[in-house]
């Protein structure tokens, strides 16, 4: 499988470029690595040609949502939030990790470990 590796800071520009050039976001795949980081692979399609973009991020990283460029991205991003505990900024609608999970769930089932955010002071 071929995948172009990019950094987190390049993701926003890459997403915008792909949208402008007519690429469709097929989905995103989250792959936990043995060192605790996470590989995030974005699959894009244009005229049945598929290309992958890969970035490696820390488990508590916050990523920009691709939703502004690819309006269907929110569903897979919410799924990743639920199952792996990653956070996406600018995600609309944002289910806050509760699209699949119940509100009382505090662990991300697909993650080796979960970073639980601190409760805000009342």
């Amino acid at each position, binding site marked *: *499988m071929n995948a172009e590796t990019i950094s987190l800071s390049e993701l926003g520009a890459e997403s915008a470029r792909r949208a402008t050039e*007519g690429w*469709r*976001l*097929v*989905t995103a*795949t*989250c*792959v*936990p690595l043995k060192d605790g980081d996470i590989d995030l*692979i974005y*699959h894009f399609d244009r005229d*049945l040609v*598929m290309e*992958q973009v890969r970035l490696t991020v820390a488990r508590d990283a916050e990523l920009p949502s691709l939703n502004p460029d*690819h*309006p*269907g*991205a*929110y*569903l*897979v991003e919410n799924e990743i939030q639920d199952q792996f505990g990653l956070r996406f900024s600018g995600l609309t*609608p944002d289910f806050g990790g509760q*699209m*699949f*999970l*119940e509100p009382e769930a505090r662990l991300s*089932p*697909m993650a080796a470990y979960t970073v639980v955010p601190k409760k805000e002071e009342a």
Partner: protein
Amino acid sequence: MGRTVIPFGPQHPVLPEPIHLTLTLEDDRIVEALPRMGYVHRGLELLAQKRTPDQMVQVVERVCGICSMMHGMCFCQALEEIHGIEPPPRAKWLRVFWAEMHRLHSHLLWLGLFADALGFENLFMGFWRVRERIMDMQDATTGNRVMVSVSAIGGVRRDLPPDLESWCRRELIGVRDEVHRLGKAMLGDYSTAKRTKGIGVLTAERAHDLGTVGPVLRGSGVAHDIRMLDKEIYGALEFTPCVETDGDSWSRLAVRIAESEQSANLALGALDKLPQGDITVKVKGRPEGEAVRRVEQPRGEALYYVKADGGKLLDRVRIRTPTFANIPALLDLLPGHDLADAPVLVLTIDPCISCTER
């Protein structure tokens, strides 16, 4: 104007699948729709880290009952890519034969349910009666009516009994003719047109932006079908995707009727061109590497990502099912329509929540 929020599903008289939507209404008009998932989630992707690749074939075949063979096929193709092996030609053609039978019985299932949702109980029974002939063929050729379990890494697990070939041909021709007759009755009906024409219009551009797949995308005029990539088999069968251009519920219905007839022809073509030979190649060693494969399931493009590190178990299996890709389009379609149209609109994406909540 006051707003009313109502839960739509997971249990609903018109829906066979436990989809759950939160609908916000102004009077009878939907102004917002949000999904709620997890009702039947089974964590099958996580199970991949506890099962061997061979055992996982059985697991992924149970992602969905209606397109189980295609899930198994796509997973096996990804593993074959990692192993660097290619199934024998006979296995490839047999996969296409059973895959098209699956598409046909999936579409017939949906056509029956859609007819029932519109109030045509007789038509519902007609489509399901024809579907039984496909189930009989699957039973006769694989030993199972629904979960045919023919997929294997490196080929297929069963061969087609030679004495059944001519019977399958006769049955497929009969099914094709019946589908044509019933489809013509459905598309020519006044009530069907009233309930579907101009309802839930999705433009080609919006469908593309939302990542829509399958008959929903092709109903919006986009000739996108993963089968077009398979030059060896589908190229030899001169496959071209069925497309409608209006983007409404009627177009999505018409695409599925056309595809049902087409699948019968493709399965017949696969029987005609079925070569002699082995049905599997031996897989040596443990998989190491990663692969991504796509297949065109009845509801659209499915994607499998598989990663293995040479160990006994797989590192990661990721499954993106077509219904998951079509939910953004559904949520985009619903606002602006009456609540009474919601069941028809939900049905036109042919939702499979079993797939979505894999």
